[in-house]
Protein backbone atom coordinates (compact mmCIF):
# COMPACT_ATOMS: atom_id res chain seq x y z
CA UNK A 1 0.00 0.00 0.00
CA UNK A 2 1.36 3.41 -0.95
CA UNK A 3 1.35 6.28 1.52
CA UNK A 4 -1.36 7.95 -0.55
CA UNK A 5 -3.57 4.87 -0.41
CA UNK A 6 -2.95 4.79 3.33
CA UNK A 7 -4.02 8.43 3.60
CA UNK A 8 -7.21 7.80 1.60
CA UNK A 9 -8.07 4.69 3.62
CA UNK A 10 -7.60 6.45 6.92
CA UNK A 11 -9.73 9.42 5.86
CA UNK A 12 -12.42 7.13 4.49
CA UNK A 13 -12.64 4.96 7.61
CA UNK A 14 -12.48 8.00 9.90
CA UNK A 15 -15.43 9.56 8.07
CA UNK A 16 -17.47 6.38 8.35
CA UNK A 17 -16.60 5.98 12.02
CA UNK A 18 -17.80 9.52 12.70
CA UNK A 19 -21.07 8.66 10.96
CA UNK A 20 -21.79 5.41 12.79
CA UNK A 21 -24.54 4.10 13.10
CA UNK A 22 -25.73 5.92 9.97
CA UNK A 23 -24.71 4.87 6.48
CA UNK A 24 -23.05 7.44 4.21
CA UNK A 25 -23.92 7.93 0.56
CA UNK A 26 -20.98 7.30 -1.76
CA UNK A 27 -21.24 10.81 -3.22
CA UNK A 28 -21.16 12.42 0.23
CA UNK A 29 -18.22 10.27 1.24
CA UNK A 30 -16.30 11.15 -1.89
CA UNK A 31 -16.89 14.91 -1.56
CA UNK A 32 -15.77 14.82 2.05
CA UNK A 33 -12.67 12.77 1.27
CA UNK A 34 -11.74 15.23 -1.44
CA UNK A 35 -11.27 17.84 1.28
CA UNK A 36 -8.93 15.61 3.24
CA UNK A 37 -7.02 14.14 0.36
CA UNK A 38 -5.60 16.61 -2.18
CA UNK A 39 -6.57 15.94 -5.80
CA UNK A 40 -8.51 12.77 -5.06
CA UNK A 41 -9.67 11.23 -8.30
CA UNK A 42 -12.89 9.19 -8.70
CA UNK A 43 -10.74 6.22 -9.74
CA UNK A 44 -8.70 6.41 -6.53
CA UNK A 45 -11.88 6.67 -4.50
CA UNK A 46 -13.52 3.71 -6.24
CA UNK A 47 -10.37 1.63 -5.90
CA UNK A 48 -10.10 2.32 -2.19
CA UNK A 49 -13.77 1.53 -1.64
CA UNK A 50 -13.32 -1.78 -3.46
CA UNK A 51 -10.17 -2.60 -1.47
CA UNK A 52 -11.84 -1.78 1.84
CA UNK A 53 -14.85 -3.92 0.95
CA UNK A 54 -12.57 -6.78 -0.01
CA UNK A 55 -10.69 -6.47 3.30
CA UNK A 56 -14.07 -6.37 5.09
CA UNK A 57 -13.35 -2.93 6.58
CA UNK A 58 -16.57 -1.47 5.23
CA UNK A 59 -20.01 -2.68 4.24
CA UNK A 60 -22.01 -1.34 1.30
CA UNK A 61 -25.78 -0.99 1.38
CA UNK A 62 -28.03 -0.23 -1.58
CA UNK A 63 -30.33 2.67 -0.75
CA UNK A 64 -32.91 4.53 -2.80
CA UNK A 65 -30.36 7.30 -3.48
CA UNK A 66 -27.49 4.98 -4.35
CA UNK A 67 -24.81 2.90 -2.69
CA UNK A 68 -24.08 3.83 0.90
CA UNK A 69 -21.36 2.67 3.24
CA UNK A 70 -20.77 1.92 6.88
CA UNK A 71 -17.70 0.84 8.82
CA UNK A 72 -17.28 -2.71 10.15
CA UNK A 73 -15.52 -3.78 13.32
CA UNK A 74 -12.49 -4.79 11.27
CA UNK A 75 -12.33 -1.24 9.90
CA UNK A 76 -12.49 0.23 13.39
CA UNK A 77 -9.65 -2.06 14.44
CA UNK A 78 -7.57 -0.93 11.46
CA UNK A 79 -8.17 2.71 12.46
CA UNK A 80 -7.12 2.00 16.03
CA UNK A 81 -3.91 0.40 14.82
CA UNK A 82 -3.21 3.26 12.44
CA UNK A 83 -4.25 6.29 14.46
CA UNK A 84 -2.70 9.58 13.42
Amino acid at each position, binding site marked *: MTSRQFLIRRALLK*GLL*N*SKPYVVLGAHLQS*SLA*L*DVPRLTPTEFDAEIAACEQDRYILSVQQDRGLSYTIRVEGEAWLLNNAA
Partner: protein
Amino acid sequence: MARKPRSDAKLRNLPPDQRTALTDWLVDEGISYEAAKKRLKSEFGVSTSYGAVADFWQKECFSLRFRKARGVAEEIVGVMRESENDFDEATLTAIGQRAFNLAVAKDADVGELVNLVKVIGESKKLQLQSDKLSLEKRRVRMLEKKAAKLDQLTNDLDTDDGLTPEERLQKIREGLLI
Protein backbone atom coordinates in the same frame (compact mmCIF):
# COMPACT_ATOMS: atom_id res chain seq x y z
CA MET B 1 -2.74 22.53 -5.66
CA ALA B 2 -3.07 22.28 -1.89
CA ARG B 3 -0.05 23.56 0.02
CA LYS B 4 1.60 21.51 2.70
CA PRO B 5 0.72 23.02 6.11
CA ARG B 6 3.54 24.85 7.87
CA SER B 7 5.14 22.65 10.46
CA ASP B 8 5.08 25.54 12.92
CA ALA B 9 1.35 26.26 12.45
CA LYS B 10 0.25 27.12 15.98
CA LEU B 11 -3.18 25.53 16.01
CA ARG B 12 -2.05 22.31 14.35
CA ASN B 13 0.62 21.95 17.01
CA LEU B 14 -1.59 22.51 20.02
CA PRO B 15 -1.40 19.87 22.78
CA PRO B 16 -3.87 17.05 21.99
CA ASP B 17 -6.39 18.05 24.70
CA GLN B 18 -6.49 21.67 23.49
CA ARG B 19 -6.72 20.57 19.88
CA THR B 20 -9.62 18.25 20.74
CA ALA B 21 -11.31 21.04 22.66
CA LEU B 22 -10.99 23.43 19.70
CA THR B 23 -12.35 20.77 17.34
CA ASP B 24 -15.30 20.13 19.67
CA TRP B 25 -16.12 23.84 19.88
CA LEU B 26 -16.09 24.22 16.12
CA VAL B 27 -17.75 20.93 15.18
CA ASP B 28 -20.11 20.10 18.03
CA GLU B 29 -20.94 23.51 19.44
CA GLY B 30 -20.69 25.23 16.06
CA ILE B 31 -19.22 28.42 17.52
CA SER B 32 -17.92 31.14 15.19
CA TYR B 33 -14.24 31.56 14.32
CA GLU B 34 -14.23 34.83 16.27
CA ALA B 35 -15.72 33.13 19.35
CA ALA B 36 -13.22 30.25 19.03
CA LYS B 37 -10.37 32.76 18.83
CA LYS B 38 -11.54 34.48 22.03
CA ARG B 39 -12.08 31.17 23.82
CA LEU B 40 -8.61 29.95 22.89
CA LYS B 41 -7.19 33.10 24.47
CA SER B 42 -9.33 32.94 27.63
CA GLU B 43 -9.11 29.19 28.28
CA PHE B 44 -5.66 28.25 27.03
CA GLY B 45 -3.90 31.61 26.72
CA VAL B 46 -3.33 30.96 23.01
CA SER B 47 -3.36 34.06 20.82
CA THR B 48 -4.27 33.39 17.21
CA SER B 49 -5.90 35.01 14.22
CA TYR B 50 -9.33 34.63 12.65
CA GLY B 51 -7.66 33.27 9.51
CA ALA B 52 -5.73 30.64 11.45
CA VAL B 53 -8.96 29.34 13.03
CA ALA B 54 -10.62 29.29 9.59
CA ASP B 55 -7.62 27.39 8.21
CA PHE B 56 -7.79 24.93 11.10
CA TRP B 57 -11.48 24.31 10.36
CA GLN B 58 -10.82 23.72 6.68
CA LYS B 59 -7.92 21.35 7.24
CA GLU B 60 -8.79 19.61 10.48
CA CYS B 61 -12.50 19.77 11.07
CA PHE B 62 -14.34 19.72 7.81
CA SER B 63 -14.11 15.95 7.53
CA LEU B 64 -15.81 15.84 10.90
CA ARG B 65 -19.00 17.13 9.34
CA PHE B 66 -20.18 13.52 9.52
CA ARG B 67 -19.93 13.75 13.29
CA LYS B 68 -21.95 16.95 13.27
CA ALA B 69 -24.57 15.44 10.96
CA ARG B 70 -24.79 12.42 13.23
CA GLY B 71 -25.37 14.76 16.18
CA VAL B 72 -28.20 16.53 14.35
CA ALA B 73 -29.80 13.19 13.38
CA GLU B 74 -29.52 11.87 16.93
CA GLU B 75 -31.09 15.05 18.27
CA ILE B 76 -34.05 14.71 15.92
CA VAL B 77 -34.52 11.02 16.75
CA GLY B 78 -34.30 11.85 20.46
CA VAL B 79 -37.06 14.44 20.18
CA MET B 80 -39.23 12.08 18.12
CA ARG B 81 -38.68 9.28 20.63
CA GLU B 82 -39.94 11.47 23.47
CA SER B 83 -42.91 12.81 21.52
CA GLU B 84 -46.47 11.71 22.19
CA ASN B 85 -46.59 9.80 18.92
CA ASP B 86 -45.52 6.23 19.42
CA PHE B 87 -42.92 5.81 16.66
CA ASP B 88 -41.51 2.31 16.25
CA GLU B 89 -37.75 1.69 16.03
CA ALA B 90 -37.82 1.13 12.25
CA THR B 91 -39.47 4.52 11.70
CA LEU B 92 -37.06 6.25 14.04
CA THR B 93 -34.09 4.65 12.25
CA ALA B 94 -35.45 5.75 8.87
CA ILE B 95 -36.04 9.30 10.13
CA GLY B 96 -32.54 9.38 11.63
CA GLN B 97 -30.96 8.20 8.40
CA ARG B 98 -32.89 10.74 6.34
CA ALA B 99 -31.95 13.53 8.73
CA PHE B 100 -28.31 12.41 8.57
CA ASN B 101 -28.33 12.42 4.76
CA LEU B 102 -29.84 15.90 4.73
CA ALA B 103 -27.38 17.23 7.27
CA VAL B 104 -24.35 15.77 5.54
CA ALA B 105 -25.29 16.94 2.05
CA LYS B 106 -22.78 19.51 0.86
CA ASP B 107 -25.37 22.18 0.22
CA ALA B 108 -27.65 21.19 3.07
CA ASP B 109 -29.03 23.86 5.31
CA VAL B 110 -28.41 22.48 8.78
CA GLY B 111 -30.35 25.48 10.09
CA GLU B 112 -33.47 24.04 8.46
CA LEU B 113 -32.99 20.79 10.31
CA VAL B 114 -32.44 22.61 13.57
CA ASN B 115 -35.67 24.52 12.88
CA LEU B 116 -37.42 21.19 12.35
CA VAL B 117 -36.18 20.03 15.74
CA LYS B 118 -37.41 23.28 17.27
CA VAL B 119 -40.85 22.82 15.69
CA ILE B 120 -41.05 19.30 17.07
CA GLY B 121 -39.91 20.63 20.42
CA GLU B 122 -42.53 23.40 20.29
CA SER B 123 -45.29 20.90 19.56
CA LYS B 124 -44.14 18.96 22.58
CA LYS B 125 -44.35 22.11 24.69
CA LEU B 126 -47.85 22.76 23.34
CA GLN B 127 -48.85 19.22 24.30
CA LEU B 128 -47.57 19.83 27.84
CA GLN B 129 -49.49 23.11 28.03
CA SER B 130 -52.61 21.36 26.81
CA ASP B 131 -52.19 18.67 29.49
CA LYS B 132 -51.73 21.38 32.10
CA LEU B 133 -54.90 23.15 30.92
CA SER B 134 -56.90 19.90 31.15
CA LEU B 135 -55.71 19.43 34.73
CA GLU B 136 -56.64 23.01 35.55
CA LYS B 137 -60.14 22.52 34.07
CA ARG B 138 -60.59 19.35 36.12
CA ARG B 139 -59.53 21.22 39.25
CA VAL B 140 -62.03 24.02 38.55
CA ARG B 141 -64.83 21.46 37.97
CA MET B 142 -64.04 19.79 41.30
CA LEU B 143 -64.00 23.16 43.10
CA GLU B 144 -67.34 24.08 41.51
CA LYS B 145 -68.82 20.76 42.63
CA LYS B 146 -67.50 21.32 46.14
CA ALA B 147 -68.89 24.88 46.23
CA ALA B 148 -72.31 23.62 45.06
CA LYS B 149 -72.37 21.03 47.84
CA LEU B 150 -71.45 23.66 50.41
CA ASP B 151 -74.24 25.91 49.11
CA GLN B 152 -76.65 23.00 49.45
CA LEU B 153 -75.44 22.37 53.01
CA THR B 154 -75.87 26.03 53.96
CA ASN B 155 -79.40 25.94 52.56
CA ASP B 156 -80.22 22.76 54.50
CA LEU B 157 -78.88 24.26 57.72
CA ASP B 158 -80.83 27.48 57.20
CA THR B 159 -84.13 25.69 56.55
CA ASP B 160 -83.83 22.86 59.07
CA ASP B 161 -84.55 24.39 62.50
CA GLY B 162 -85.07 21.05 64.24
CA LEU B 163 -81.33 20.28 64.47
CA THR B 164 -79.46 20.39 67.76
CA PRO B 165 -76.23 22.42 67.84
CA GLU B 166 -74.23 19.13 67.86
CA GLU B 167 -76.08 17.83 64.79
CA ARG B 168 -75.52 21.15 63.00
CA LEU B 169 -71.81 20.98 63.88
CA GLN B 170 -71.65 17.38 62.60
CA LYS B 171 -73.31 18.41 59.32
CA ILE B 172 -70.89 21.29 58.88
CA ARG B 173 -67.94 18.96 59.51
CA GLU B 174 -69.25 16.44 56.96
CA GLY B 175 -69.81 19.26 54.50
CA LEU B 176 -66.23 20.50 54.87
CA LEU B 177 -64.90 16.98 54.30
CA ILE B 178 -66.65 16.57 50.95
